[in-house]
């Protein structure tokens, strides 16, 4: 049996989830120019929220998803309001250190609250795998991909048409001009963190549904760096494309090269690719000024 279509299809599905997580990162970067190194931990906390609602409180799937989104938005909002608002105007490196510190704190909190024991999310999707003819996709991955794409689409629509989305784009474009238009730039920062938190948490729930959850789930979040380096830090379209490319790439590398190296290629391939991209295109493949940002 030819494994190429299989590898590509499941790579695209995984890539869709990466795209959603990367979007969480991009939304925050676009509006506030803060590189959120805690994106992975936002994912992890989101997955634990879901675990709490579904496994411990017995909430059904859809309300649980809504609750996770609300909680993630509150978390993002609080992080911005309580911590990062005070870092306005500080050097970039200090702000980065704060987000790195934040990721450790969130990880520690997760261990305190939910222990470091590996947990499984209750099954949330129909079990039957999706058969596309040329390839078969596991149901968790297939539904995860669909949810991710729906979420990405919703975010893109908000950004393009909703008043608050337009105001956020304006804030990203020119803060001083945005102020002068009567846009409350600070509340746009809060909104960006809330939306970024939602995107990351949804991604975390999906990743958790596929592979189980533990406080180190956020490690998957590191993969957003190859994705956003490829797609450009501030481009929603770039995040989607970057996510899909990285997903396929890591699957192909895993499928074809792992047998020769005895495994592990799948995990490093995205980062090797990131280094190569940075060597030749320091602003990322799509990170050019001329590219129209969404």
């Amino acid at each position, binding site marked *: 049996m030819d494994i190429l279509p299989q590898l590509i299809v499941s790579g695209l599905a995984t890539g869709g989830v990466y795209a959603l997580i990367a979007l969480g990162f991009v939304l925050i970067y676009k509006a506030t120019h803060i590189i959120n190194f805690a994106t992975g931990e936002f994912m992890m906390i989101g997955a634990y929220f879901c675990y709490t609602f579904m496994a411990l409180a017995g909430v059904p799937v859809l309300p649980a998803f809504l609750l996770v989104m609300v909680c993630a938005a509150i978390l993002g909002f609080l992080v911005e309001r309580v911590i990062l608002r005070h870092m306005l105007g500080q050097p970039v490196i200090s702000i980065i250190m704060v987000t790195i510190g934040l990721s450790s704190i969130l990880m520690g909190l997760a261990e305190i609250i939910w222990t470091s024991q590996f947990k499984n999310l209750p099954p949330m999707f129909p079990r039957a795998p999706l058969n596309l003819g040329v390839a078969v996709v596991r149901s968790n991955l297939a539904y995860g991909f669909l949810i991710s794409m729906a979420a990405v689409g919703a975010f893109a*629509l*908000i950004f393009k*048409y*909703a*008043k*608050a*989305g*337009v*105001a956020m*784009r*304006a804030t990203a*474009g*020119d803060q*001083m*001009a*945005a*102020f*002068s*238009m*009567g*846009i*409350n*730039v600070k*509340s746009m920062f809060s*909104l960006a963190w809330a939306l970024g938190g939602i995107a990351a948490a949804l991604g975390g729930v999906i990743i958790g549904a596929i592979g189980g959850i533990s406080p180190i789930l956020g490690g998957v979040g590191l993969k957003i760096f190859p994705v956003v380096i490829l797609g450009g830090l501030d481009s929603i379209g770039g995040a989607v494309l970057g996510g899909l490319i990285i997903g396929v790439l890591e699957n192909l590398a895993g499928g074809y090269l792992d047998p020769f190296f005895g495994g592990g290629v799948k995990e490093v391939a995205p980062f090797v690719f990131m280094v190569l991209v940075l060597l030749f295109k320091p602003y990322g493949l799509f990170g050019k000024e001329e590219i*129209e*940002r*969404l």
Partner: protein
Amino acid sequence: MSAPILAVENLTLAFGGLNVLTDVGFAVQPGQIFAIIGPNGAGKTSIRNCIGGFYRPRQGRVLFEGQDISRVAPDRRAALGLARTFQNIALFRGMTVLDNIKLGRHAHLRTGLLPALAYWGPAKREELELRREVEETIIDFLEIEHIRNQPVASLAYGLQKRVELARALAMRPKVLLMDEPVAGMNSEETEDMARFILDIKEERDITIVMIEHDMHMIMDISDHVVVMNFGQKIADGTPEEVQHHPEVIKAYLGEPRPGPVPGQA
């Protein structure tokens, strides 16, 4: 004289030990075209940033319609009716002309943050109303119908300036603060802009405060001129009064001398 619509009193601003503004005061009457001029580094931009709310003066007050707005945040000042255009065009580059202009109405849209995330119900009605108003009055007025759906980044400089003006007008301001509206324009574009500024004052009942270097235009269209030099106000009066003021001639030409003075060529 009626009550001033915008006034600054005893404005003093310092960065570290450097005095940027020293005890500056003036009053803008409703319906005026009010110009602030001065050589580079005279403090014009600092005044503008104090009025706009981006700098907090060490001393002094900014009054808008008699109300002290010195401690009001920039976005709230915009909502009160203080609009501005920028020296270096500050349009949102990835967006179309129409989107940029509509952003000017942002402060006045009534729907709150959450309904605004959606695009139905009241938010949509407001959006349609806004679009009609923008199309019918502002876009026609500034003669930019033909470019309204283009991304602003692709437009010529003079047109971008006009779009910026349109965006400021969409805010329905009471006072429009213009930062070098004709900087870098050729004489034809400058004339167009001067005509628009006069029309704005006459047809739309908007008071204009402008910072400008182009002496011809200032002397032609402004009602009142304040001259700054080294952070201090050195003259304040009608264009005729100001251009014969010895301090002004000294600031611009170095030494008083017979012959034509700026703006009279």
